[in-house]
C-alpha cells in the first residue's frame, strides 16, 4: 500500500514544528501559505524574512521558487497546507525542472480544510503527497517520522543538491495566532528582510 509510510509517521502539531524550524533560523526566507500555516509562522515570532500570504491559495511554493531563483545564496523555506498544495500540484513539476537547491518545502498534512470547518480534502486517506512529489521529479521528498526526524530532514535539506520536500502529518488544531493583515507592510518588511529595500 502506498500510504504505509504516511501511516507510520507520528501525528505532530503545526505550531510546535514551526517553532522548531524558526528557532534554528538566521537569515533564511520563510514563505507561509494561506491560513493556519502562516498564522503559526506569525505566532512563532515575526521576523522580516517571513512572508505571509493572505490569499492566493496554493502559491506558497511558487512564491518561494521566485525568491529562491532571485537569491540563490539564501536558503528559502516554504510552509504549505495539504489542501493548498492540491490546488497547485503542477508547481512541483516546475520546481523539479528548475531544481533550486536552496529551496526546502514543508507540507503540513492533516487531510482537512481545518479553517473552513475541518471538511476532509479529496486526497484524505489515500493520496500520498510525498509520493506525488517524488513522481513529479523532486527526488529529495520524504515524510518526517517525528519531530526529531523533521529537524534532521530540515538540516539535511541545507546540504542537498536539489530542492527538498518534507511531508509532516499534523493534527486538526487551528492556528495559534493571527497574522496582522496588512499586505503592504508584510511585503515591505519582507523586501527589507531580503536586503533589496530600506524601510522608510
Amino acid at each position: 500500500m502506498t500510504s504505509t509510510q504516511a501511516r507510520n509517521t507520528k501525528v505532530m502539531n503545526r505550531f510546535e514544528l514551526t517553532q522548531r524550524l524558526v528557532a534554528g533560523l538566521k537569515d533564511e526566507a520563510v514563505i507561509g501559505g494561506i491560513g493556519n500555516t502562516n498564522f503559526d509562522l506569525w505566532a512563532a515570532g515575526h521576523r522580516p524574512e517571513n512572508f505571509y500570504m493572505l490569499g492566493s491559495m496554493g502559491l506558497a511554493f511558487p512564491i518561494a521558487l521566485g525568491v529562491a531563483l532571485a537569491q540563490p545564496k539564501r536558503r528559502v523555506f516554504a510552509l504549505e497546507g495539504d489542501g493548498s498544495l492540491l490546488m497547485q500540484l503542477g508547481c512541483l513539476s516546475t520546481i523539479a525542472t528548475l531544481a533550486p537547491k536552496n529551496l526546502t518545502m514543508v507540507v503540513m498534512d492533516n487531510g482537512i480544510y481545518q479553517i473552513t470547518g475541518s471538511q476532509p480534502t479529496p486526497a484524505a486517506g489515500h493520496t500520498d503527497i510525498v509520493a506525488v512529489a517524488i513522481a513529479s521529479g523532486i527526488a529529495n521528498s520524504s515524510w518526517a517520522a517525528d519531530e526529531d526526524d523533521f529537524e534532521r530532514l530540515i538540516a539535511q535539506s541545507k546540504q542537498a543538491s536539489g530542492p527538498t520536500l518534507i511531508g509532516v502529518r499534523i493534527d486538526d488544531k487551528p492556528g495559534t495566532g493571527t497574522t496582522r493583515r496588512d499586505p503592504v507592510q508584510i511585503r515591505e518588511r519582507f523586501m527589507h528582510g531580503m536586503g533589496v529595500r530600506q524601510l522608510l
Partner: protein
Amino acid sequence: MAAAEQASSQKTATTWHGIVLQTLKRNEIKLVPYVPDRVLTTLIKDLHADPYFTTFPTAREEEAVGIVSGAWMAGTRGAVLMQTSGFATLANVLASLAVPYQIPLIMFVSERGTLGEFNYGQALVCRTMRPVLDSLAMEHHTITRLDELEFIADRSIKQAVTTQAPVALILSPLLTGGKTFDK
C-alpha cells in the same frame, strides 16, 4: 557588423516579438515564466535562445504570477506571458496578491477571441478579461500597432515598477496576426 548579426538586429527592430524582447531586456526583466500560446511561439523560442533570460513554462498562469511576485520581492524583475483564456484564471491571485501587496506584476496577454476567432468559448472568455481588469482598476493597454508597441510596453513597464502596480499588455491580433482557422 556581420551579416547574420545585421539581419538579426533588423528582425529585432521590425517584428513585434523582437521589440518585446528588447524592451524586456532594456528594463532588466530577466525572469519570464509562461503558459504558451501559438502566437507567442517565436517570442518564447527567442527568449529561450537568449542567455540573458530565465524563461520556462509553468502548469498554470497563477503559478507564474506567484513566481514573479516572489522574485520581485527578492530583487529580480519578471514578466508573465499567457493567452486570454489563461488570464481568465487569474482573478483570485490578482485580487489577493498582486493588487493588495502592491506588486508590479507585468503581464503580456496574447489576445484570442476577437477579430476572426473560430472557437465560441474563446470569444466568450475574451469578453471577461477587460471587465476583470477594470473591476480592480488595473492598468491595461491593448496594443494594435507596431509603431506604438515599444512606447506602450516600455512606458507601462516603467510605470508598473515605479508605482508598484500591476499592468496587463494585451497583444491584439492587429499587432500579432493572431490565430486563424486555417493555421
